């Protein structure tokens, strides 16, 4: 392609990704509402844009395929026939295929004669002819012909045609550009000559500049059939204006019959537009460095191949990296930020004015302005974090399709209801919750919901419902996946757990503990394996992934009625709400999310059990105590639990009590990794810089639970 458009490549991929998601969600809407012209127009535009922009970067396979899809969408849009389930299926498959082509293009992989693509292209074409013979929908020849590597035309014999074209006098008034027509002709093959006849030009005095007095004769060598040449002129020439004569294919190129123009410079296709030129240059590309080196025997061909391979990998890697390194931000967000920075500047200048002639009587004003500064800073912090926020719909969008496909696979009628998709979440969290959510949905489809007969027998509607909801709750994001299926079966899970020797028949477990069993690796109660789910891998991965994000998974279930999985996630990974606590001279931070409550115990609440160590009795439940000063080897203020403060922490459904001297207060802390700067420290999740400039360690609750467990084996 001409010009340097590489810098638009990223814009292109961002745009295409948006179009692909429009396409998929549009198709799903269409399935519910086959005659929604608005949606049809929208998806048509998306495909159309991909088709149009793709070839600018040389992505011809992508463009060609988009064209095929578009050809099917067009009659739908014009209500020539309506979208049946089969058509939607085919279009969805095509959307996947298009996505594959886009990914391939992004990674620089060349997909040419891919089977999936060819197969789908054929099916799209069959669908067109079977559904309705739509007249005049033959693909425009320039689409494929404009590509650097046009697909092989149907006829194989190379033919030479002489084309005589005497356009009507109103050619220019009809907004036509003869140059473009010849361009198109040039794309069909090799134009060996093109001559302009000016014999009909009147004298200058009689000349009407808006009329066309010219005619052309050109010779074209092409593999395309005559109809393709005609189609170029279809619009431009009325019958009688155009003659196309086949010259003998073997004979040397015949000269045009018309006498050559006295001014040869008038040839319409000037040199730089001539496609022949490109063909000539192609063969004469300067030798690559590698070829020269091989020739000089500086390297062996094998070495060269290896080096090239490496180059390619590095190129691909850097491309991938680039794609992730940038993000699109709503202009509105940036504008607000700019505003805020303006306010900050005003506050700052007010403060420095005050500082210039400060007297103690201005103290209240100083305090007020400092407060304002704090407000500004806080708001800017929030807004900057907001830049990293994306609506959760970016993840949710793919689920209607998933559930649709799964419902067909498992033979159940399933409806997915999504709400709260506008809820915003940190980009990095968004990227990581896709897989766990997918898994929960798969599970709900495969296990949670009963087969239709069973549902009807249980007096439920035949159609199963899965609700996916996201909302804010106390500085956290909650995502719930709820199905109105059979619920978890306590007895079945217990039986399985006993069979797998996770527990013994004598253990008495609370419901919550039983439900927690399904998060154990390798645990599955499914009787038969399906390719949807049931291999016992997954739920543990779900839990691990969510916890890696500082989140919590919990289950609520009513046997026979419903199961609800709730994911609680922090808004962002970089900042957490923390509770500052003190042990002796040192300050620690406990993630607020994991604190259940804090108590000042009476002496008789703390007991020592053999084999369980020190425990505290809180309203009848016993929790192990971890004395923080012992863990970190500190000098505490209090060694007697009755004088100290106990924090009850929870993680992964397990509870632990941590003994500290004092609760200092609550604050937002920015997490800095210790592991990256030092090494992993047990019981410490990270560090932060406190208000007075000292470093505070953030406690790792999971680690503390493990510490509490050392020397005391608790069931699950």
């Amino acid at each position, binding site marked *: 392609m*001409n010009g340097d458009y590489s810098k638009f490549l990223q814009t292109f991929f961002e745009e295409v990704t948006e179009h692909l998601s429009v396409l998929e969600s549009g198709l799903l809407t269409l399935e519910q509402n086959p005659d929604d012209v608005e949606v049809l127009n929208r998806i048509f535009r998306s495909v159309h844009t991909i088709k149009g922009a793709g*070839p*600018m970067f040389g992505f011809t396979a992508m463009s060609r395929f988009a064209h095929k899809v578009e050809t099917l969408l067009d009659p739908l849009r014009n209500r020539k026939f309506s979208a049946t389930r089969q058509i939607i299926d085919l279009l969805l498959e095509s959307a996947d295929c298009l996505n594959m082509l886009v990914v391939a293009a992004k990674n620089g992989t060349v997909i040419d004669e891919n089977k999936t693509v060819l197969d789908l292209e054929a099916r799209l074409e069959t669908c067109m002819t079977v559904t309705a013979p739509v007249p005049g929908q033959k693909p425009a020849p320039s689409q494929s012909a404009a590509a650097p590597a046009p697909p092989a035309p149907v006829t194989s014999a190379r033919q030479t045609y002489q084309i005589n074209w005497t356009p009507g006098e109103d050619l220019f008034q009809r907004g036509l550009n003869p140059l473009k027509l010849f361009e198109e002709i040039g794309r069909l093959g090799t134009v060996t000559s093109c001559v302009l006849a000016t014999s009909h030009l009147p004298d200058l005095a009689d000349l009407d500049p808006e009329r066309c007095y010219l005619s052309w004769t050109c010779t074209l060598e092409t593999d395309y059939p005559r109809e393709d040449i005609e189609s170029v002129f279809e619009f431009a020439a009325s019958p009688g204006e155009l003659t196309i004569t086949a010259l003998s294919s073997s004979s040397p190129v015949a000269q045009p019959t018309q006498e050559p123009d006295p001014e040869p410079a008038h040839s319409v296709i000037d040199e730089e537009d001539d496609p022949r030129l490109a063909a000539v240059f192609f063969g004469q590309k300067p030798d690559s460095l590698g070829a020269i080196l091989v020739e000089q025997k500086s390297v062996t061909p094998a070495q060269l191949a290896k080096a090239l391979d490496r180059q390619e990998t590095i190129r691909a890697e850097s491309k991938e990296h680039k794609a992730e390194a940038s993000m699109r931000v709503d202009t509105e967000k940036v504008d607000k930020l700019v505003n805020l920075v303006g306010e900050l500047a005003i506050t700052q200048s007010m403060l420095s004015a005050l500082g210039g002639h400060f007297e103690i009587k201005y103290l209240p004003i100083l305090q007020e302005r400092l407060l304002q500064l704090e407000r500004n800073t806080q708001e800017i912090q929030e807004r900057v974090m907001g830049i990293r926020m994306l609506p959760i719909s970016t993840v949710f969008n793919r689920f209607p399709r998933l559930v649709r496909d799964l419902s067909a696979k498992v033979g159940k009628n399933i409806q997915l209801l999504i709400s709260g998709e506008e809820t915003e979440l940190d980009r990095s969290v968004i990227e990581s919750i896709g897989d766990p959510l997918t898994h929960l949905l798969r599970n709900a489809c495969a296990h949670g919901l009963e087969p239709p007969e069973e549902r009807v027998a249980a007096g439920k509607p035949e159609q199963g419902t899965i609700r996916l909801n996201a909302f804010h709750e106390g500085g956290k994001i909650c995502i719930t996946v709820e199905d109105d299926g059979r619920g978890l079966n306590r007895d079945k899970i217990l039986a399985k757990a006993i069979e797998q020797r996770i527990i013994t028949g004598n253990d008495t477990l609370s419901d919550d503990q039983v439900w927690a069993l399904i998060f154990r690796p390798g645990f599955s109660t499914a009787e038969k394996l399906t390719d949807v789910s049931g291999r016992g891998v997954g739920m543990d991965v779900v839990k691990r992934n969510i916890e890696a994000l500082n989140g919590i998974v919990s289950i609520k279930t009513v046997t026979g009625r419903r199961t609800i999985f709730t994911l609680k996630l922090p808004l962002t990974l970089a900042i957490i709400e923390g509770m500052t606590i003190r042990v002796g001279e040192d300050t620690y931070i406990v993630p607020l999310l994991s604190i259940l409550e804090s108590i000042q115990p009476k002496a008789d609440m703390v007991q020592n059990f053999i084999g369980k160590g020190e425990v505290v009795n809180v309203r009848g439940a016993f929790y192990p105590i971890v004395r923080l000063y012992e863990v970190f080897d500190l000098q505490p203020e209090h060694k007697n639990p009755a004088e100290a403060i106990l924090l009850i922490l929870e993680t992964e459904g397990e509870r632990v009590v941590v003994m500290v001297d004092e609760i200092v207060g609550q604050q937002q802390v920015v997490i800095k990794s210790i592991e990256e700067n030092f090494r992993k420290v047990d019981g410490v999740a990270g560090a932060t810089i406190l208000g007075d400039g000292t470093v505070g360690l953030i406690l790792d609750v999971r680690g503390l639970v493990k510490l509490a467990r050392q020397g005391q084996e608790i069931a699950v």
Partner: protein
Amino acid sequence: MSRVILVVDDSPTMRGMVSHALNEAGFETKEAENGKDALIKLTTMMGEGKPDVIVTDVNMPEMDGIELVKEIRKLSAFKHVPVLVLTTDNTDEKKEVGRAAGATGWLVKPFDSELILKVIRKVLPQ
């Protein structure tokens, strides 16, 4: 004084690429993302920096390129501004519609920047 060209396309990639090609050749460009947007921008450009040529896509939300051409031809200030249609559509029906609406030329995507520049130089008012 550089010549101003208004580029209308709903695809940011396309807009960017067309503008880039034109800027490289020394033209000043303005961008609009659909027909409606273009009309608004034209109205504000009426005083100064009126575009010398308009290049528009056809398939756009809000108002498509064909409608845009029709509207432009109704405005006395822009009636004579050449409007080039740049589209993937290459069917005769579409071209006829474009011609009837009053488009000056019909260019096909994927575009050849050389060709676009040539055409623009040809239609530029002296």
